[in-house]
């Protein structure tokens, strides 16, 4: 059998409620300070839930160029910022003042650099603002920018326009697993030689009146109004997630290519697994059987024993159903070895970034490998007695782990699990 090339991470980018940029976001997550806050836009809209986790304020036109605010949905803006950071981190673009992509990629690599993004919704704010405009002012006053702003593949397309990347360019949607699924597919495109560099990750900017109202109607959002404990994954009193927004990006390449250009290697993408629950539109099966399959496939793909995994960045949304099912699934996959695994959910700080979650958490998984620190699960005070896991709470734990698993499970019963190693 042909040996598959090893795929490495050589660049990271993160725009998250815990902080802008990987350094700030990671510090924010380690500090365990919940990013949830009363959202004025939601209060004004009168939504039943008004807590949300926003990325820190920024000026799109100043940072990304004139006309950005008008032409690009917020979700595309966040993806542009994160991808620019990751490409610069990988040494593939050189930012200039007011132009984070500088002159873009070098001409001789452009055909071999691809984009693989995940997004659950796409241009949510554009939908929310344009549909009332259509109803009130009529078809003849509909914005010609609606389609390009709203399409869920626009972020990946726009990053290509700005960077010059002409390799494979796709967007995958597995709802709240989309960011992880994108990394999975990008990894496989590199393995099969269809690109030399893949810029992969996820993005979401869905904190709108319509989305928040609808998630609240499903009972998915917490009714806890205390920002500090609203998102409390695995806690006995958890009652739903807090909406978050942001983008996470990783730059991936084959190890030999990265070494040939003397790029710093942050981690290996050793395993990726995907599965479907084939069970229910939004609820996981109680035994987490679909999650079990995704994790087992990721471990088999990585060719590592469960005992080799030192840390799991859990999906851990803070909903009663997800956290219970994920805990059961982890016990099934790892057996007794799970007792030696430090489990945390960074959603205690960031809230749930939906289609961006899997990618932002992949960035945190890589950071855990690089720094030897496992982040705490903010907001969690008393771990649910029914959840038999070593959940890291209160403070970061020093743990020089060699391998990390990151889980992501989407509505539709679509599951993704990634394994990163040092």
């Amino acid at each position, binding site marked *: 059998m042909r040996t598959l090339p090893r795929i490495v991470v050589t660049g990271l980018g993160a725009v998250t409620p815990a902080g802008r940029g990987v350094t700030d976001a990671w510090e924010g997550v380690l500090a365990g300070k919940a990013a949830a806050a009363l959202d004025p836009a939601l209060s004004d809209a009168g939504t039943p839930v008004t807590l949300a986790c926003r990325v820190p304020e920024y000026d799109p036109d100043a940072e990304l160029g*004139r*006309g950005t*605010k*008008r032409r690009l949905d917020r979700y595309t803006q966040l993806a542009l910022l994160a991808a620019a950071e990751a490409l610069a981190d990988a040494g593939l673009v050189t930012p200039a003042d007011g132009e984070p992509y500088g002159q873009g990629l070098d001409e001789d690599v452009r055909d071999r650099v691809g984009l693989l993004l995940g997004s659950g919704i796409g241009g949510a704010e554009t939908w929310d603002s344009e549909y009332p405009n259509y109803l009130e002012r009529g078809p*003849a*006053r509909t*914005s*010609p*920018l609606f389609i390009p702003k709203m399409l869920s593949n626009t972020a990946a397309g726009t990053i290509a326009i700005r960077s010059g990347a002409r390799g494979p360019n796709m967007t995958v949607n597995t709802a709240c697993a989309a960011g992880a699924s994108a990394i999975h597919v990008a990894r496989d495109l590199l393995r099969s030689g269809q690109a030399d560099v893949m810029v992969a990750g996820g993005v979401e900017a869905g904190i709108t009146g319509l989305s928040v109202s609808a998630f609240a109607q499903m009972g998915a959002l917490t009714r806890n109004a205390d920002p500090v404990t609203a998102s409390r994954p695995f806690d006995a009193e958890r009652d739903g997630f807090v909406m978050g927004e942001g983008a996470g990006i990783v730059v991936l390449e084959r190890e030999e290519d990265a070494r040939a250009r003397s790029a710093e290697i942050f981690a290996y993408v050793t395993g990726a697994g995907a599965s479907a629950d084939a069970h229910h539109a939004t609820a996981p099966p109680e035994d987490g059987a679909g999650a079990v399959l995704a994790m087992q496939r990721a471990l088999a793909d990585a060719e590592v024993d469960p005992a080799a995994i030192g840390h799991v960045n859990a999906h851990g949304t803070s909903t009663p159903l997800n956290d219970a099912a994920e805990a059961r699934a982890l016990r099934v996959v790892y057996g007794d070895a799970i007792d030696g695994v430090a489990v945390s959910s960074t959603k205690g700080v960031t809230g749930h970034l939906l289609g961006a979650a899997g990618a932002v958490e992949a960035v945190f998984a890589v950071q855990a490998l690089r720094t030897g620190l496992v982040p705490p699960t903010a907001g969690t005070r008393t771990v649910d007695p029914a959840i038999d896991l070593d959940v890291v709470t209160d403070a970061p734990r020093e743990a020089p782990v060699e391998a990390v698993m990151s889980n992501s499970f989407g509505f539709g019963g679509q599951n993704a699990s990634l394994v990163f190693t040092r």
Partner: protein
Amino acid sequence: MNQDLLTTFTEILVEDFDIPAEEIAPEATFEALGLDSLDVVDLTLAVEERVGIKLEDEELEDVRTVGDAVNAADAKNVERQSEPAGSEA
């Protein structure tokens, strides 16, 4: 050239499109100002909202500059005002 309409176009380009006022002149092309065809349609919607004059696709075919657009809007305005009273009732 209708100076009131030129002022309206200039205000919209500055406020909604973030274009520096010093770059805007009758002879400035939309291309040079960084507006593509979708942006120009977006601009016409903003003009309609302010002054009630809507330039249709076919009326934009030969429009390249800010001045072209102002003149096209002005021509339409004159046409509209010369219609018999009560036609808008």
